[in-house]
């Protein structure tokens, strides 16, 4: 059947029957899943930093109140004032800085080695079936063993000098980096590898252009772990023939029951964790600017 042609409707104000009449200036929903409305970048950063500080400040306040109200015995959790005094003491005597400096050297060296080894292993096992069969199960097994129990063997092979401490850090760092990077490599979309094949990319170019960028988010997650683990392992590693280091400081404080120093150490650890985390976040933001995920708000 055929309807007769009808003239175009005359221009007139639109009717809004059946539709609520309230108009909003902003379009769409305002939800964290969507790019937030653009604000001056500086202001946004300040708000964010302030926001992140809320949590720690809350904990601090709780601690203060708990101490003031004597909810916890000061033997276990000294008052913020006591800890602050201990911290001032440690800083003014230069002890804290010195020990941190020593540990920083160990943590960074171990972290560097662990990163290189972890990524290399992940690339090997991620790209080659043979390497995976040979390496992966060994890595999994070593990862499952308590470092404390392995310590005597490490000492026999590497002595009690700096190499052992760095080795222990490297060992502990390697696993999170390896596992996350390995998983990320395996999760790279096969379609991009196909593309690379048609472009005649060699192994190296494939790694450079497809595998590494594709695995970068996973690697960064591993790195987030690795940074804090590199510091944590020092608590154990710096029991071996150390005369300085944040781990040494902690162990010593524990042996001589200096709870205030322990708490200072804990706070230092927390700050180190926040700091390295912030750095990794920045790297993440920069390195993943291409992505259209929830991450890239």
């Amino acid at each position, binding site marked *: 059947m055929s309807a007769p042609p009808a003239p175009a409707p005359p221009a007139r104000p639109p009717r809004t029957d059946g539709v609520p009449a309230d108009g909003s200036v902003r379009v769409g929903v305002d939800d964290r899943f969507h790019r937030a409305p653009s604000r001056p970048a500086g202001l946004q950063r300040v708000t964010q930093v302030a926001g992140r500080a809320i949590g720690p400040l809350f904990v601090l306040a709780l601690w203060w109140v708990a101490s003031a109200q004597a909810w916890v*015995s*000061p*033997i*276990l959790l000294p008052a913020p004032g006591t800890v602050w005094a201990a911290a001032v003491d440690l800083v003014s005597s230069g002890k804290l800085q010195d020990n941190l400096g020593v540990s920083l050297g160990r943590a960074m060296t171990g972290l560097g080695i662990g990163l290189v080894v972890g990524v290399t292993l992940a690339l090997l096992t991620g790209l080659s079936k043979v390497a995976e069969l040979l390496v992966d199960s060994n890595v999994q097994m070593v990862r499952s063993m308590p470092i404390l129990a392995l*310590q*005597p*063997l490490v*000492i*026999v092979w590497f*002595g*009690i*000098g700096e190499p052992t401490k760095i080795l222990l850090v490297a060992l502990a760092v390697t696993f999170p980096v390896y596992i996350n990077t390995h998983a990320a490599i395996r999760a790279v979309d096969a379609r991009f590898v196909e593309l690379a094949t048609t472009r005649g990319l060699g192994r190296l170019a494939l790694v450079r252009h497809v595998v590494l960028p594709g695995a970068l988010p996973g690697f960064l997650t591993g790195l987030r772990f690795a940074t804090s683990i590199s510091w944590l392992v020092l608590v154990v590693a710096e*029991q*071996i*023939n*150390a*005369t300085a280091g944040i781990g040494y400081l902690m162990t*010593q404080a*524990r*042996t*001589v*029951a*200096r*709870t205030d120093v322990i708490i200072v150490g804990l706070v230092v650890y927390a700050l180190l964790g926040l700091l390295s985390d912030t750095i990794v976040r920045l790297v993440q933001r920069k390195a993943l600017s291409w992505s259209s995920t929830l991450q890239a708000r």
Partner: protein
Amino acid sequence: ATPNTSGAADASDTGTGVTLRFGELGSALTQQALLEAAGEFDDLPYEVEYSLFPAGPAFMEAVPSGAVDLSIQADTPSIFAQVGGIPIKVVGVQASVKTGESFVEIVANPDSGITSVADLKGKKVAVLPATILQYTVVRALEEAGLSYDDITPVELPLTDAPAALAKGDVDAVASLDPTLAQLKASGAVVVGTGLGITSGYSYVVATDAALADAAKSEAIADYLGRLGRAEEWAVAHGDEWAAISSELTGLPVELAQAAQERSAAGWVAIDDQVIALQQEQADAYTALGLIQTPLDVSAYYDDRFNDVLTGGTK
């Protein structure tokens, strides 16, 4: 009747309603077996609950939680507990090593050329800081006319020392059993002992809370009496006890026997002399910089059980 061991609930069915919570140190719970073997466990008028800690400081960390009442330890934990303000008192002192024996020894690699403490000058010596091992080294050096600065102390966990000695990273090790036995088994030679330096005492520590509780305090007195008798039984029946304890701890039975041969038992009255020995140690740690403000250890002694332990019942 087998009374509750660790993790048991309230002892509401016993006469006194008291539960003594004993913190054992080491690698396994052995005390109940000791009391049972010595026939001291059958007619306990209160409950005993045992818990296990790897070392003295770990016990001290549990004190503020109120989960423990008393323990027997080596010299140093109670000193550092005082530094940390842990609410405990030393309420009993016990001889644990035969006269003429010491459980601390300094051993060296045979090819290091070290044969005496004097030879340690300029050498690397593995010590565990803030322990009787460190104290022994300090005092042994003093007796040999040296000071702690004349050696290179290497701070190592006890169990890591054999590997370091085998590797040659340290020249000598101050150690005690069973690591000491392991060291000797791999050829290390004894170059010095704690004889005349270490008291060989064990110290009973009780929490202030437990001591403030009259019923508990009474139970402690009774329990320590039984424990002392049981230990005397163990000294008298060395092989028998060594077999039982090695079964429990996993310690090779030869080592258990060797340890048993050295051990002694018997309470020592808490007096100025005993306190002075500890004060000496505390001062040594102060000199080493481990303790910042000088300590008066006598504040941490409570001699209320002196009569019961060293007088009346024995």
